[in-house]
């Protein structure tokens, strides 16, 4: 009897669910207005199917989570659904042919989120089998290096990075799944070392951190993984992402500030070295330093992106009324620039605000779980994964930092990225609910 289930719910839970419902309705309102614009512009109703699927996913997730995780954080799901819905709009505006596929991925991602929220023992199992997970993830990474392809360049003539594995009818990007696996592994490893790390803190004058194998081991592991990704896959973004997230985790686990400083120096040093050694890194840094020397050539993409931001103005050109297609591959790495052109400053402020709030909520969940090291570190790792990735690509697209090819979480085109972002959301929701070991 559903009526009865509602009446037995605690008052603060009802309040929580009302907050989530309100935000979802507002997100739906925004998407509806833009879908109307799109159908006025195109004179066809084909884009409504995406909106209907989005509404279906949002309602299903809201209702099922109310039942299964009544005490969850009320903000994370609306944020994820809002940005994912906006991403669908951007993609169906840019490449209508890709939008149907992305809509299917949205359904898959929502299912994954619900499954992650559903399994009570998930955290315990992940923790128990962390080495199996890690070696599975590394095996898949090696497989990608050996068998990887690029969907835009199946024969490998163009020499584009081969980060995908061909599974017949669709492609998956294993480095996306590796994100969660690495965070789970590091969180459980550092949680195990937590008492020792914190004990060394008490012994401050005599600490010999850098030499202690319990610190040095994971640093070496992460450094090796990052270098392997950089050298064999030329995937600069993922390499730097893994290293920065790992550094954050280690800092949170140990509370030792010099770690951050030495990590930053290490990243800069590695950057300088990579500048000498790898063409892809040199290219990225050169066009970041001064794109205007080669604005029609190698820096074409970043210059077009800057022009898109300028063209957006305050209100934006309006959906379907700008020219974001002049940016090469606008639907994936440069989705943020396409958004800036059509939704303007207001759109940019909202998307930056939403991603920031997502990260803050993740850290808040970490604080609320601070008596349990594994849960804390997992929440910190997952939310900083999203935050660092967002900063890297937003900064890159705006030419604030050298461009590193990562997707903008939730927004960019790409099934693996969307599914992994939703899985992270599901894990954070489960952590925010409190129970489970």
């Amino acid at each position, binding site marked *: 009897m559903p009526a009865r289930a509602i009446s037995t719910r605690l008052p603060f839970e009802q309040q929580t669910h009302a*907050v989530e419902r*309100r*935000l979802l309705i*507002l*997100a739906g*309102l*925004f998407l509806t*207005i*833009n879908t*109307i*614009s799109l159908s*006025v*512009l195109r004179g066809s109703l084909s884009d409504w199917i995406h909106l209907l699927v989005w509404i279906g996913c949002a309602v299903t997730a809201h209702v099922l989570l109310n039942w299964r995780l009544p005490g969850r954080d*009320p*903000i994370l799901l609306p*944020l994820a659904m*809002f940005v994912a819905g906006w991403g669908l709009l951007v993609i169906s505006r840019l490449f209508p042919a890709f939008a149907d596929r992305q809509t299917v991925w949205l359904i898959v991602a929502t299912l994954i989120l619900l499954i992650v929220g559903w399994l009570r023992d998930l955290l315990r199992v992940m923790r128990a089998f962390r080495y199996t997970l890690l070696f599975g993830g590394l095996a898949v990474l090696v497989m990608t290096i050996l068998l990887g392809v690029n969907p835009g360049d199946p024969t490998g003539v163009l020499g584009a990075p081969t980060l995908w594995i061909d599974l017949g009818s669709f492609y998956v990007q294993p480095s996306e799944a590796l994100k969660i696996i690495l965070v789970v592994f590091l969180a459980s490893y550092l949680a195990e070392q937590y008492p020792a790390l914190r004990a060394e803190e008490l012994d401050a004058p005599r600490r010999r951190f850098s030499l202690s194998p319990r610190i040095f081991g994971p640093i070496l592991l992460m450094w090796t993984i990052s270098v392997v990704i950089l050298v064999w896959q030329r995937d600069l973004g993922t390499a730097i992402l893994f290293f920065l997230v790992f550094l954050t985790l280690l800092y949170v686990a140990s509370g030792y500030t010099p770690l951050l400083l030495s990590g930053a120096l290490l990243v800069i040093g590695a950057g300088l070295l990579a500048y000498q050694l790898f063409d892809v890194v040199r290219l990225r840094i050169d066009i970041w330093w001064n794109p205007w020397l080669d604005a029609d050539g190698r820096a074409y993409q970043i210059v077009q992106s800057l022009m898109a931001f300028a063209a957006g103005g305050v*209100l*934006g050109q*309006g*959906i379907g*009324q700008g020219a974001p297609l002049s940016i090469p591959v606008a639907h994936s790495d440069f989705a943020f620039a396409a958004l800036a052109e059509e*939704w*303007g400053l*207001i*759109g940019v*402020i*909202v998307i930056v*605000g*939403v991603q920031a*709030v997502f990260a*803050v909520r993740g850290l808040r969940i970490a604080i609320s779980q601070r008596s349990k090291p594994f849960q804390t570190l997992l929440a910190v790792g997952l939310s900083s994964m999203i935050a660092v990735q967002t900063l890297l690509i937003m900064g890159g697209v705006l030419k604030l930092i050298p461009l590193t090819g990562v997707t903008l979480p939730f927004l960019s085109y790409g099934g693996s990225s969307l599914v992994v972002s939703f899985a992270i959301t599901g894990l954070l929701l489960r952590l925010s609910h409190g129970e489970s070991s």
Partner: protein
Amino acid sequence: MTNETALFLLRLAGSAALLLFLGTLFYTLLQDVRGATAQIEAARRSYGRLVLLEEIDAVPGSSGKFYPLMPLTSIGRSPTNSIRIEDTFASAEHALIALRSGTWWLEDRQSRNGTSLNDMPVTEPLIITDGDVVGIGSHKFRIELEP
């Protein structure tokens, strides 16, 4: 209405919806922060204090040493107590002051030398009020409750 006008109005509506979403989001966060602050304030709420008394020429007066009064305040020699006193006449776990349904109670925890309330021995849990003097070993505390 031409298509251009309609699209322009929709663009305005879309921007308004975006700002509405962001505004609601920030309002929710503000409510959340307020709730958390209220919770912390409630937890930090002070109930009163125990003033350590000192006898000068047989007249008890404040020694200038204060201890916070908590809903469960234990007093004794052992370091596990909320108030630890160095007193050879006090037992390891000597006495307990507890807030039970709005009333403060003083009880002796089978101490060797006993606890006193206003110089009368405590044999069973007693209700205490503002200004009462609790004696433990050679120490005397005056209870100062906050309204």
